[in-house]
C-alpha cells in the first residue's frame, strides 16, 4: 500500500459558514494503481488530490505514505516531500512559459538536484521521446498545441520517476481525439513504468481506462469500484522497477 488515508476531513471557514470539503474520507491506494476520483463540481476531488500531494493539510485524519505517517510537516518538509515523491499534471498544463520544452521537462530534476547535468538531459530527452514530442525540444510552450503542451506536462511529471502522479482534470482542456491520445499515453506509462496515477476527472474516457473509480459526493466517498475489464494497473506486484516505490533514504520522508 503506497497511501492510506484514514478519516480525512478538510473544513474551510467562509465567513460564518463552515464548508466541509472532505468529510471523513478513508481510502487505501496500492502501488502502480491507475485510479480515477470522480464526482460533481465542489464534491472535494481537488481538495483530496491537494491533501495527497501535500499542497494542503487535512483538518483531521491521518495519511500514511509507504507506512509512514505524514504528520504536521513544516512548509519546507512538505516541499521536500513533493520534490522527491510526487508529481502533478494540471488541467491547464501550467508549463513555465519562459522555458523551452526540454527545460520544462528538466525542471523537476533540476529542482531535485539528485542527478548530474548529463543524466538530467538524457532522462528529459528520453521522456520527450516517450511522449512522442521529439523535435520540439527547443520550442517554447506558446509554439505548441494544447495536446502537445499536456504531453510536455506529462513528461515533466514523470521525469523524476515519482512514486505518485496526481492529475487534476488532465483532459478537460483537450478535444476528444487528443484527450484519448493523452489518456492512452498515461495508461501506457503507468503500465510500463509503474507510477501510481490518481486522477480527478469528469471525463468518461479517463474513467473507462481507470482500474479503480472512486466517486466522491459532498466530501464523502460515495462508491469505490474496482474494474476487472479496464486495462491492467502498472507492475505494482512485481519487484521494484524504475518507478516502483521503495524505501529510499536519498529521497527523504
Amino acid at each position: 500500500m503506497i497511501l492510506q488515508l484514514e478519516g480525512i476531513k478538510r473544513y474551510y471557514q467562509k465567513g460564518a459558514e463552515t464548508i466541509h470539503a472532505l468529510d471523513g474520507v478513508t481510502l487505501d491506494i496500492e502501488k502502480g494503481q491507475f485510479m480515477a476520483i470522480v464526482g460533481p463540481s465542489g464534491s472535494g476531488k481537488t481538495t483530496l488530490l491537494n491533501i495527497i500531494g501535500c499542497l494542503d493539510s487535512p483538518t483531521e485524519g491521518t495519511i500514511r505514505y509507504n507506512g509512514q505517517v505524514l504528520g504536521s510537516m513544516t512548509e519546507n518538509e512538505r516541499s521536500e516531500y513533493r520534490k522527491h515523491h510526487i508529481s502533478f499534471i494540471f488541467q491547464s498544463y501550467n508549463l513555465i512559459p519562459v522555458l523551452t520544452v526540454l527545460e520544462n521537462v528538466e525542471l523537476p530534476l533540476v529542482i531535485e538536484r539528485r542527478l548530474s547535468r548529463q543524466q538530467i538531459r538524457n532522462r528529459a530527452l528520453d521522456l520527450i521521446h516517450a511522449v512522442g514530442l521529439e523535435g520540439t525540444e527547443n520550442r517554447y510552450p506558446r509554439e505548441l498545441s494544447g495536446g502537445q503542451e499536456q504531453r510536455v506536462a506529462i513528461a515533466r511529471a514523470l521525469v523524476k520517476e515519482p512514486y505518485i502522479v496526481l492529475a487534476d482534470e488532465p483532459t478537460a482542456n483537450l478535444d476528444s481525439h487528443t484527450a484519448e491520445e493523452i489518456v492512452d499515453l498515461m495508461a501506457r506509462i503507468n503500465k510500463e513504468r509503474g507510477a501510481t496515477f490518481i486522477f480527478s476527472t469528469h471525463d468518461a474516457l479517463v474513467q473507462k481506462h481507470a482500474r479503480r473509480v472512486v466517486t466522491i459526493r459532498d466530501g464523502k466517498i460515495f462508491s469505490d469500484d474496482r474494474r476487472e475489464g479496464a486495462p491492467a494497473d502498472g507492475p505494482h506486484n512485481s519487484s521494484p522497477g524504475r518507478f516502483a516505490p521503495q524505501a529510499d533514504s536519498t529521497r527523504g520522508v
Partner: protein
Amino acid sequence: MLWKIAWRNVWRHGKRTALTIVTMTFGLGLFIWMDSMLKGMDRVGLENIINLTDSSLKITTRQYEEEGGYSLDYGIDRLQEVESALKEDPRVLAVTTRTRALGQLSNGRYATPVLITVIDPERDRRVYTLGEYVEGSWFPQDVAAPIIVGKALATELGVGPGDWITLAARTRWEAHNARDFQIVGLLNAPEPSLNKGTVFIPFSVGEDFLELDGLRTEISVRMEKRTNLAWAMADSDELAHRIEERFPELRAKSFGEVGRAFLELSKAKSKGASIIILVVLLIGGLGIANTILMSVFSRIKEIGVLRAFGLNPRQIRRLFMIEGAIIGLVGSASGLLFGLLLDLQLIVYGFPLEAMMGNIDMGLPLSGNLYGEWNPDAFVVALSLGFLLAIMASWGPAKRASKMEVTDALRFV
C-alpha cells in the same frame, strides 16, 4: 535554472523592464553627472585657494591671524630668515610677500570699502596666477601709480582701464592718506570675492602710500604640484608644521587646512543636490518594486507550479530577488555608462555655468565653463547604490510571492 527563469522573465515584459531601467539609468547618470560637477566646483575652489587667495602656504604672525582686520601692527619680523628656511625645502617653488590693509576706493562721487593688497608684481606672479585674469596690463613700468581693480568693483564705480581713481587708507602710523591711482587692469578672476572688493597696488607705490617701511604682513608660498590632492594637502601641512616649530611667533596656514574647511563647506552645499538625487533614486526604487510586484501578480500560477514541484518559499523568494538584482545590475550598469558619457561631455566641453547663471552670485567660482572631474568613487557608489536599491525594492514583492499558499496560487486564474 532559477537564474535562467529569472533572466528570461525579466525580459518577458520588455517594456516594463525597460521603463524601470531607463529610470535607473537617468537617476544614476544624473548622480554621476552632478557629482562630477560638484567635484569640478571643489577642484576650482581648491585651485582658487592655491592660485588666487591663499597659495600653498600662507604665513602671518599669530596676532595678525588671531586679531583679523588686516592690521598693519603685526608685520613679520624675521622675514629674511623665514624666506631662507622656506627656500631650503625642495618642494617650495616660489615665495612672495604681501601686505594687506583696509581702505576706501572712490570715483569722486561714491566711495566703497576695499581690501588693499600690496604686492611685488614680479614675485607675486610666480606664486599666484592673478595676472592671467587681468583685463588690461599687469603693472606696466611706465605708470607711476598703477592699480588693478576687481572687475565687479570697477563696474560698480563706473570706471575702467586708464581711469584715475582715489584710494584712501590709514597708514602704518595711523595717519590718513589718500592718493590717485591709474587703473591699469581689471581683475576678472574665478573668485567673486576678489572681483568685488579687492584692489592691488605694487610695493613701489604702496611702501610710501601706507608708510610701510618694509613691513610685510604675509608670506605666500607656492609648492610643487602633486597628482593627488591628499598628498598636496599633506605636503603643505608638513611644511606649515615645520615653520611653526621653528618660528613660534608665526602662524603658517597650509592649503590643506584652508582646503579642508572649504571642502566641508562644499559638502554642506552639495546636500541639496543629494536630495534631488535621492528623489530620483526613490522613483527608480519604486519602479523596480512595481516591476517585481507586477511580475509576481502575473505569475501567481507559475509560483504555484514551482512550489508544487518542490521549490520551497525561500527559493521562490530568491527567484524574485534574482529578478530584482538583474534589473538592478543592468540598470546600474546602464546608469554608469550614461553617467560616464555625461561625465565625458562635462570634462571635455564643460558646462556653461557662467552663461547660464549670468550675474547671479551663488558663492561659486564662476568663470566661463565649469569642467567636471572624474570620480571613480561616484561610479562605485552609483553601481552599488543601484544594485542595493534593486535588492531592497524586490524584497517586499519577493516575500509576498514566497508567502503565497500553493493551493491558492494554483487556483489563481
